[in-house]
């Protein structure tokens, strides 16, 4: 009844190619952004409901936004370009440690630039490890990206220069100073993360609708056929690796600087890579929206499973919870692959289809 594009005529090419062609979508996204940028901080200042506590920012919103960003990056590579990667955690680590070293060794650099440069270094590394994808694909490529994961785990643990010779190997992020203002409160950190995520998500969304995005999808659907119709696999695959690694690298720098504060190489080990891959699969391969849904689900599931027995008055040990989380995640992945290979994003699309017809289903 409300979600219907009747009467919305497109009279120009610009309108036809708009990022959100339906007016209701535009309004919904606008309202969501307004709420995220203005509503949430306002509620936090007024101390309304759950937003009054720091917990919701530190444990939920900030990690959710950063992991969603990393999932978008991985989705570009796996979902749009079809190159499976098990090394996302390594690219996060590259972003984090290069941003750290830029901030440490060139203190004049504004922190935003350091974080973006961290992403840039991750992009270069991504291109380097993407080169094998020109010759191999599928499972073989997965092993090649695993090589990146293990190599960088080792590099940041053993080569002391990267961690500035700290004896324990764990490093502290520089103070978060943006435009002369030190960001201390969780709300400010949240706004910083949100700005990064909004800009990069819009960028990613537009890239996937552009020429290069269509090239990625052609390569994903059938690489040989794509090559025959004139798409250069070298260019398409390496841009996918570069842009994906850039976004993942920025997410890694944010994860280290904004979320963790002080961190060790373990923060970016292979479990992180799998977590990101699951977000992408469960959320929906080849969907920006799905990356957010998948990140939210994977992040909230353990917290829910932790709280549920308490709410029911049962005592369950931490170990049991972590095993249950692993069983449920695994089951969901298998279930979704069998029943809904396009993940939560497809379910969301179905809801929209139903809403169009509602309340007259014909």
């Amino acid at each position, binding site marked *: 009844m409300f979600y219907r594009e009747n009467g919305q005529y497109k009279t120009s090419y610009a309108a036809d190619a708009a990022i959100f062609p339906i007016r209701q979508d535009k309004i919904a996204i606008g309202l969501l952004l307004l709420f995220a940028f203005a509503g949430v901080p306002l509620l936090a200042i007024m101390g309304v409901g759950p937003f009054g506590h720091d917990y919701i920012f530190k444990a939920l919103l900030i990690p959710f936004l950063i992991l969603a960003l990393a999932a978008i990056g991985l989705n570009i590579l796996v979902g749009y370009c079809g190159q499976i990667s098990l090394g996302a955690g390594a690219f996060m680590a590259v972003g984090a440690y290069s941003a750290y070293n830029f901030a440490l060794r060139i203190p004049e650099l504004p922190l935003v630039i350091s974080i973006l440069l961290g992403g840039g270094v991750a992009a270069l590394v991504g291109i380097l490890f993407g080169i094998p994808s020109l010759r191999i694909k599928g499972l073989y490529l997965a092993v*090649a990206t695993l090589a990146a994961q293990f190599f960088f785990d080792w590099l940041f643990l053993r080569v002391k220069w990267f961690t500035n010779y700290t004896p324990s190997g764990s490093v502290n992020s520089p103070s978060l100073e943006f435009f002369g203002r030190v960001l201390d409160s969780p709300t400010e950190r949240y706004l910083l993360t949100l700005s990064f995520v909004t800009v990069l998500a819009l960028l990613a969304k537009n890239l996937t609708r552009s020429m290069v995005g269509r090239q990625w999808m052609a390569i994903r659907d059938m690489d040989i056929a794509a090559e025959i119709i004139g798409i250069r696999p070298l260019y398409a695959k390496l841009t996918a690796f570069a842009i994906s690694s850039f976004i993942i690298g920025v997410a890694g720098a944010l994860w280290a600087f904004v979320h963790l504060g002080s961190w060790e190489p373990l923060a970016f080990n292979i479990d992180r890579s799998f977590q990101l891959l699951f977000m992408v699969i469960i959320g929906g391969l080849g969907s920006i929206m799905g990356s957010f849904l998948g990140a939210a689900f994977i992040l909230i599931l353990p917290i829910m499973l932790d709280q549920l027995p308490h709410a029911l008055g049962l005592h369950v040990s931490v170990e049991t919870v972590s095993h249950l989380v692993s069983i449920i995640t695994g089951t969901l*992945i*298998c279930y979704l692959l069998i029943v809904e290979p396009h993940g939560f994003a497809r379910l969301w699309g179905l809801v929209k289809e139903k809403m169009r017809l509602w309340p007259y289903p014909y």
Partner: protein
Amino acid sequence: MASLGNFIEVLSGGLLAGVLYSLVALGFVLIFKASGVFNFAQGSMVLLAGLALVRSLDFLVAHSMPFAVAVVGALLFASLVMAFTAWVIERFVLGPLVNQDGLTLFMSTIGATFIIEGAAQLAFGSDVYPLKLYPTDAWFALQSLFPGGVLVNKLDVWGGLIAAFLVAGLAIFFQRTKTGRALRAVADDHAAAQSVGIPISWIWFVVWLVAGLVALVAATVWGTKLGVQFSITFLALKALPVLIIGGLTSVPGAIVGGLIVGAGEKLAEAYLGPLIGGGIEYWFAFVLALAVLLVRPQGVFGERIIERI
């Protein structure tokens, strides 16, 4: 440091450790050959088999069974667990995914990995459980040739012997039995095999069962070496470069790949490690695999990859 005896010691240690990687890699190759599924869950199956074995063994010994009887009982129990796992995976995960592309199947086995890891630890506990099935003491060979001789671990020798038996047994199974022939037919072409009356779900169950039993054998060796514990699942990751180097479809490839990886990483650790900071064992195999991929994507023994539109 760089004496000949030392070199031989490092090399033999590496080669024998490589055989142990091959034990895990064999499970991968079996499933890939027969169903085209790249089974990421092999490492977690080793964990499950090991946990089932060691826990039931402890239980039987605690109930005053003689050790030999207890070992047989525990092996039987663990085999049953692996058979059940094979049935569940075939019935609920791979069965519904017949005719999907390889990447989907691969990701579904990642899902299966997490289910098996969670369930195994939930059912059998998540501590480190020591297992003593083989002698683990050191043994000095060739003492007449080199001063001090060459140190060899008896467990590694046992591992080598077991791997040799396993490969021989599997070769006979694949080449000489009716089921083995059916397996090779399924590997060639699912649809064609089905059309001549080969029951594909039964064949897949057999394959996963055999892979489960190989995992059990690997678990006995690795469990004796490290104790049965969660970190055994990382073996699956160590076995990946072995597969890449040897080729995904070749049983001898798995063995040779294991030997190359084992010897390569031990030699690199001993001679290259001091130069660039130790611990390169951790990634050396992967970089080696990467180099092999660039030169020969199908691996040393793999079948040539032919692509059609």
